[in-house]
């Protein structure tokens, strides 16, 4: 199904075969990620294959039901003819552990757009779809989403090399301890505090500003799209289901007819088939919605990177400002002029001049502070530049990925629509045949 050229990084085109199913489309996406090849993916195959319900005591010692997902990994090697694949290593993880992993990655790689997790709670639900987290359809879609998340991370040039991620896939029990030992949670808390604070950057980076704007626009349009799509799905469901009533009335009517009876009866059955077909159609469309949702959540990750840069820029500006102030203070001290009002200056005026000794020690301290400040500024500058460099590398990579993936998604959506039309034609043609026999 893939038209991937060897050697060139082209989009995965599934055009030409419009009978492809959503599972096949999903596999194509995964194949793309594998093809792009990171060291990790070359070594290891990974899947999230099952979901199971568990009950246990939670942190506040209360009984709860939760779902665990089975992660299977096995060495990626070509099998000899007729050879059986090696038994995979497996471990169980629950959603909260995935969340933990993601938070760790967020903190550890602030310049990377971290792939999002599938939604915690079902949103943009059309009325017949269950919003219950324990609903088997929801669990199934979540399983797919979690697998997608792992593959996204595993195919990322930077993230795939992370040790914690590797342990997540291989160490069931000790992993939690190890990740907490990294101390990322403290960093997370402090970051969170700073990020939620209001601050203004004096010289915002134009590129990041544009990116944040784009990210907000994308977020807004995808939200709108998902909302309207859910309404469309609702309405379409209604249209199909009402046709089921034809089935019943044709059946009743056929009972009082002689020659017309058979034709009516069989046509009625086709109407029932038509009405029932919408369930599968909409189920498949959820896959498209999930693809959109991934990018909706991605916009949060993009925004997060922009904000982190802003914070970094702000801190840099603060350090620079602080340094300027200190240098000014030193100058005042040296020249004895008070250019800027300072409380110390006032008090010394009011309560008498300080001694030469005091003055000299203050000067020394200030000079030390300035030296430290200059060091810090240099560090921060380098940090900032490095952040910008690595972030933009990842942003470019992300943009390409987004264009590819969304294009794919739109194409597969069109294919889904074609399939739906074909089904409709089939059913109505069958019904027509029956009517003709009346």
């Amino acid at each position, binding site marked *: 199904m893939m038209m991937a050229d060897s050697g060139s990084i082209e989009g995965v085109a599934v055009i*030409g075969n419009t009978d492809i199913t959503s599972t096949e489309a999903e596999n194509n996406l995964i194949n793309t990620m594998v093809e792009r090849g990171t060291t990790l993916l070359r070594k290891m195959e990974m899947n999230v294959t099952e979901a199971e319900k568990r009950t246990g005591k939670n942190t506040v010692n209360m009984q709860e039901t939760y779902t665990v997902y089975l992660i299977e990994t096995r060495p990626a090697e070509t099998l000899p003819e007729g050879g059986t694949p090696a038994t995979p290593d497996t471990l169980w993880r629950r959603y909260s552990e995935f969340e933990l992993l993601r938070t760790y990655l967020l903190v550890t790689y602030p310049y990377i757009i971290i792939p999002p997790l599938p939604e915690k709670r079902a949103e943009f639900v059309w009325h017949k779809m269950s919003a219950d987290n324990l609903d088997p359809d929801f669990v199934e879609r979540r399983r797919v989403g979690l697998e997608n998340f792992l593959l996204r991370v595993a195919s990322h040039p930077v993230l795939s090399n992370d040790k914690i991620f590797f342990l997540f896939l291989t160490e069931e029990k000790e992993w939690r301890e190890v990740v907490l030992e990294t101390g990322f949670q403290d960093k997370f808390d402090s970051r969170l505090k700073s990020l939620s604070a209001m601050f203004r950057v004096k010289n915002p980076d134009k590129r990041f500003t544009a990116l944040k704007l784009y990210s907000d626009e994308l977020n807004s349009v995808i939200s709108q799209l998902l909302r309207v*799509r859910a309404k469309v799905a609702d309405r379409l469901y209604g249209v199909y289901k009402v046709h089921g009533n034809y089935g019943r009335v044709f059946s009743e009517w056929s009972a009082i007819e002689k020659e017309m009876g058979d034709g009516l009866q069989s046509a009625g059955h086709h109407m029932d088939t038509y009405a029932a077909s919408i369930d599968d159609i909409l189920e498949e469309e959820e896959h498209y919605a999930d693809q959109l949702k991934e990018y909706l959540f991605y916009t949060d990750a993009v925004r997060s990177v922009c904000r982190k840069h802003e914070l970094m820029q702000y801190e840099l500006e603060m350090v620079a400002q602080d340094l300027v102030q200190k240098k000014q203070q030193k100058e005042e001290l040296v020249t004895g002029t008070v250019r800027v009002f300072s409380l110390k200056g006032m008090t010394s005026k009011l309560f008498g001049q300080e001694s030469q000794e005091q003055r000299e020690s203050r000067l020394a301290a200030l000079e030390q502070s300035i030296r430290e400040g200059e060091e810090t500024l240099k560090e921060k500058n380098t940090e900032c530049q490095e952040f910008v460099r690595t972030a933009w590398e990842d942003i470019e990579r992300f943009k390409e990925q987004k*264009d590819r993936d969304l294009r794919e998604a*739109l194409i597969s959506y069109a294919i889904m629509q074609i399939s739906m039309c074909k089904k409709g034609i089939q059913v109505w043609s069958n019904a027509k045949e029956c009517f*003709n026999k009346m």
Partner: protein
Amino acid sequence: MSVGAPRVLASSGQKPITEILHPLSAAEDQLSGTVSVGGDKSTQEAGLTNGTPVETSSPASTSSLFNRLQLDDDLEADVRDPYAETTETRDLFVTVDDPKKHVSTMETYITYRVSTKTSRVEFDLPDYCLRRRYQDFDWLRIKLEDSQPTHLIPPLPEKFVMKGVVDRFSEEFVETRMKALDKFLKRVSDHPVLSFNPHLNTFLTAKDLNKRQGLALLTKVGESVKHAAGGYKLRARPAEFCAMGEYLDTFNQKLGTIDRIAQRILKEQSEYLTELREYGTVYSSWVGSEEELRRPLEGVSGSVTSCCGALEDLGEGMSQDFLPVLREYVLYVESMKNVLRKRDQSQAEYEGRLEAAIIRKQEDRTPMPVEVEKCQDKVECFNADLKADWERWQSNKRQDFKQLLTGMADKNVNHYEKCQAAWESLITLLQDKQTEDKTSESN
């Protein structure tokens, strides 16, 4: 004369005429009269009242047994399949089309062109073309009902429309009404008895109808007075007419259900359409913030818009072609029920009179009055006509619904074909772009 319960005419079906006994032949006459059988296309004698026989090739239902007695014995039972195609024997073709609005100082109304092509001798010319308005069709229908009380007259579209609710001059309304009028006229002109009715002839040929509406009204009043005065109660309705009544009731019910379902579907589709339109615009608005995704997004938006158009067409088609025909059949069922009622009435009258006559005969040995015989005639003719019309109606109903439902299926198939084409063109578009990109990259 038979004493006791009146003998109901057996359903003759396809039996040859000679095997059927004349109802009056029980004791006295051995006349090999005719009984109308099987509704079929055949020429029929004109001039019913004067009894003059005209060329006859086959029997047909008439309203007077007396007349039939004078007919040639060449009459044979027509045993042709009532459902067979009879286009070869059709010699009267009518069409209603070309609606036009007329504005006068008094009123505004629509007229329709009524075109006739015929080879019948009853018509002076082979072609006629004139304009008629709804009122004229109504006149014709009343005249037919009055002059052919034993026959089922096809229904007309609804006469009254609520001003302000329905626009009487909208294209849709006029189109729908015209189609129904066309159907009415075609049904009448295809009917072996009704098509020879002189009022139809007048309608199709006369410049001025000179409608004596007053007279029609009087006739109607007369009838109801007669019935009220009679007040006869029906003793035993023959099984087949009971069955017809039951069928009509159930059929009517089902028609109503189908109408409701069709309307509901239209409503749901309309609401779906509203959402779908908004859906398309969201894709359009997304285009603004993208570069690479421009084409696919525009394409999806375009395909969605095409689907909206196809859906609109489907809705229009269903509401213009499907629903009116369905409703017309409800009116048809009503007409049929009326005819059944009238039949019941005439049977009741006969039974009543017969009873009275029998009692009198027992008392003073007076012979059976002619009225009673006439009543019996009437009942038997009625039954025969009704059965023939019923068969014809059933056959037409089967054809009509076959056409209606296959039409509905066609419209839906059509709709999906349009949508499929819209989405497939998007795929092709994107495919072309991809080949474009590849070639440009390899250059």
